[in-house]
């Protein structure tokens, strides 16, 4: 399910260390040892983070010469970005219509808005 994948992606990226790992892997593949270097945590802890990222499909460790290198699976990230970008575009289309409407509104409208709020207060009390 596409939405499930997205959920896993977001929750995998909820952790700052995992976001950092992903950001560093964007520069190129790295071994687990290299990834662990800047962190004050055990290699074991780094492996656990990588497992979460692997489960979300964000990284993989393709077979090859030891030590195996961790690779960022850019496709999964791209899918998330595509969805967010599509959502953003729809919002932008809506706000362009609002732009056009606002251009036709006069500034005296603000007085009416203030009146509405006064009415709200009266309603509340």
């Amino acid at each position, binding site marked *: 399910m596409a939405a499930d994948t997205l959920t896993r992606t977001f929750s995998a990226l909820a952790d700052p260390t995992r976001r950092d790992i992903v950001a560093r892997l964007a520069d190129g593949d790295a071994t687990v040892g290299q990834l662990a270097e800047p962190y004050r945590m055990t290699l074991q802890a780094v492996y656990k983070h990588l497992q979460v990222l692997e489960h979300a499909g964000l990284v993989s460790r393709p077979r090859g010469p030891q030590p195996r290198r961790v690779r960022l699976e850019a496709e999964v990230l791209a899918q998330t970005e595509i969805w967010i970008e599509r959502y953003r575009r*729809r919002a932008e289309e*809506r706000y362009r219509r609002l732009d056009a409407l606002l251009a036709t*509104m006069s500034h005296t409208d603000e007085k009416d808005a203030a009146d509405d*709020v006064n009415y709200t207060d009266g309603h509340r009390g």
Partner: protein
Amino acid sequence: MSITQTAIEADPKLPIIWITREFAATAGQLFRAHTDPVLFAQWVGPDAAATQIEHWDARTGGSWRYTGRIGDTEFAFHGCFHEVRLDRIVQTFTYEGEPDGVVLETLWFEDLGGGRARLRLQSLVDSFESRDAWLASGMETGVNDGYAKLQRMVDDGAV
């Protein structure tokens, strides 16, 4: 004057979507465009003529309902105005195609000076699944289904 495009952010830790957009308007005008039903209907949906405000009481404790139409498919939405102030609106949003789902929206209208104002919209969805489905569908209103249907009609030569 350059147009500031809509910025969007999906929080990885909470099922929240943030939208930020600047307008060549005052905060008061933005407020009006969100609370006056005649104005709201003109921009909220892709086709102003197809947006029908069924009920609208933009006051603290009030409620709203409107329908939109794409092709021969009608979409209905409703919610409550939880708090209505000049600088912010807190409201709920439900797409009636999924009546159990509800989004808690907070809108902020902020004057930036020089005839510009910033709109911030925080949408708290009731689960990550719903939030992600929203994003995946490309739209919070479910209108994407309508687009898909319209596309099929176009593909079939019906339009």
